[in-house]
């Protein structure tokens, strides 16, 4: 069985891959936002994939698609809508690669937007099962594991406070509201344009 893992370059996704890689053949996908960010997250993803002995890493540049979401949707819904688009793109790629699952490092209670309500709305954008081995892990457990598997040094940024000090604003989402907002976008076209930027980097 194969899974396509979403690899951000941070702590969580690398640890999630580590936990599942004995059971599954892992392919990985990173979404780059260059030029709106630098290429450090992509470099980290490549290093992490090598460390985790992932043989297939793909990168999609998602900057234009993010720009369109920022331009056409309410910014309070940006996180959910961009994630839903990413999962749709990942699902398309996963099918082409004959993967059975998507895999991510989402966990509850650490980042404001990763609430059960949001995860539910995000998950409903795709039909493929999403594996979330870290769902009930807390940040300390994830960091401890990242140190143990030696991905910690790769994932950590130059300034840790922003990575480790998220706040917890109340965040709720509603599928109907999000789906209505998505009518401002041409989702099919955005998936196509995303896949057009696909690169295999490992």
């Amino acid at each position, binding site marked *: 069985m194969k899974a396509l893992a979403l690899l951000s370059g941070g702590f969580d996704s690398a640890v999630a891959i580590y936990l599942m890689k004995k059971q599954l053949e892992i392919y990985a996908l990173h979404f*780059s936002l260059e030029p709106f960010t630098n290429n450090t997250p992509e470099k980290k993803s490549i290093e992490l994939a090598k460390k985790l002995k992932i043989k297939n890493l793909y990168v999609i540049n998602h900057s234009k698609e*993010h720009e369109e979401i920022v331009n056409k949707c309410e910014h309070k819904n940006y996180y959910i809508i961009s994630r839903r688009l990413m999962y749709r793109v990942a699902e398309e790629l996963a099918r082409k690669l004959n993967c059975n699952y998507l*895999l991510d490092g989402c966990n509850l209670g650490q980042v404001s*937007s990763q609430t059960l309500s949001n995860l539910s709305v995000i998950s409903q954008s795709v039909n493929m099962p999403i594996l979330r081995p870290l769902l009930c892990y807390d940040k300390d457990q994830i960091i401890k594991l990242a140190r143990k598997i030696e991905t910690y040094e790769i994932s950590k940024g130059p300034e840790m*406070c922003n990575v480790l000090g998220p706040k917890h604003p109340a965040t709720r989402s509603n599928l109907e509201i999000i789906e209505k907002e998505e009518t401002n976008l041409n989702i099919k076209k955005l998936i196509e344009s995303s896949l057009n930027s696909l690169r295999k980097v490992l």
Partner: protein
Amino acid sequence: MVNVFIERENKTTKINARNSKELMKILNINPETVLIVKNNELILPEENLNDKDELKLLSVISGG
């Protein structure tokens, strides 16, 4: 002074900064982790800022 909304913290603040790089430094935010929206448009990480600019710092979403 520019108005800055920080999505991750769900708060708005006023900052005196000449460009977005300086702004990140003042706010102690790792530039890898945010997208900068100036007056409703995504901008590059090192753009100049003017008084009365309305900024939003949205979390970067690059994968898992």
